[in-house]
């Protein structure tokens, strides 16, 4: 049965979060740092749907970044822990710079909504998130990552190896 609804949501494209970064210079060339970033989503846009519109979510903090790193102007950056992998975000560029309007991750915006059966109009168990791929590189993961120093032309190279990689 067709219906209209309003949801008060946390935007999963860029969730409600808090973070702490610490950085200390060990030598003139080397500095060490850490990143802790967690999110807390209540009624995430990726989870609410026609049957669940209030109090949806784990109601707790979930991790985003938990990593330590060493960095130097000539060394580059070596990081270990949970963080953004080298290919993360390489194919989800939104030229509007809003990460919403032309964003590839449709499931972040309304991934929990259920499709209806075209014959009966009843809700199925298939969600929008089940049927679309973000078409991005690997997401955040537990990993070791290396970023080279800035090379000629302002470019740098990155590689990472995570626990789910082969």
């Amino acid at each position, binding site marked *: 049965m*067709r*219906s*209209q*609804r*309003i*949801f*008060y*949501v*946390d*935007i999963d494209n*860029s*969730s*409600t*979060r*808090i*973070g*702490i*970064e*610490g*950085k*200390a*210079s060990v030598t003139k060339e080397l500095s060490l740092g850490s990143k802790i970033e967690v999110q807390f989503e209540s009624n995430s*846009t990726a989870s*609410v749907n*026609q049957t669940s519109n209030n109090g949806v979510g784990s109601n707790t903090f979930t991790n985003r970044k938990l990593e330590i790193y060493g960095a130097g102007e000539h060394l580059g950056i070596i990081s270990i822990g949970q963080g953004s992998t080298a290919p993360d975000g390489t194919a989800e560029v939104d030229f509007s710079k809003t990460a919403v309007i032309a964003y590839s991750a449709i499931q972040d915006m*309304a991934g929990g*909504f259920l499709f*209806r059966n075209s014959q009966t109009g009843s809700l199925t168990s298939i969600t929008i998130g089940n049927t679309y791929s973000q078409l991005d590189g690997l997401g955040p993961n537990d990993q070791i990552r290396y970023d080279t120093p800035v090379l000629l032309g302002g470019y740098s190279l990155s590689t990472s190896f995570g626990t789910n990689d082969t």
Partner: protein
Amino acid sequence: MWHHGRSRKTKKTEKRFNINSKTGEATVLTALQEKIKLKIYGQVNRGILYSDD
């Protein structure tokens, strides 16, 4: 009262509270953090989603 050798006078801790106007990130720096720079940041991103199916 005079103390011999090193002064026991405690160095006063200076606090600075800076907000980046572009990113909204807030940074608290104290004299104790001259070597360890600590940045605390966060965001609350709530909205209204309308559906008509």
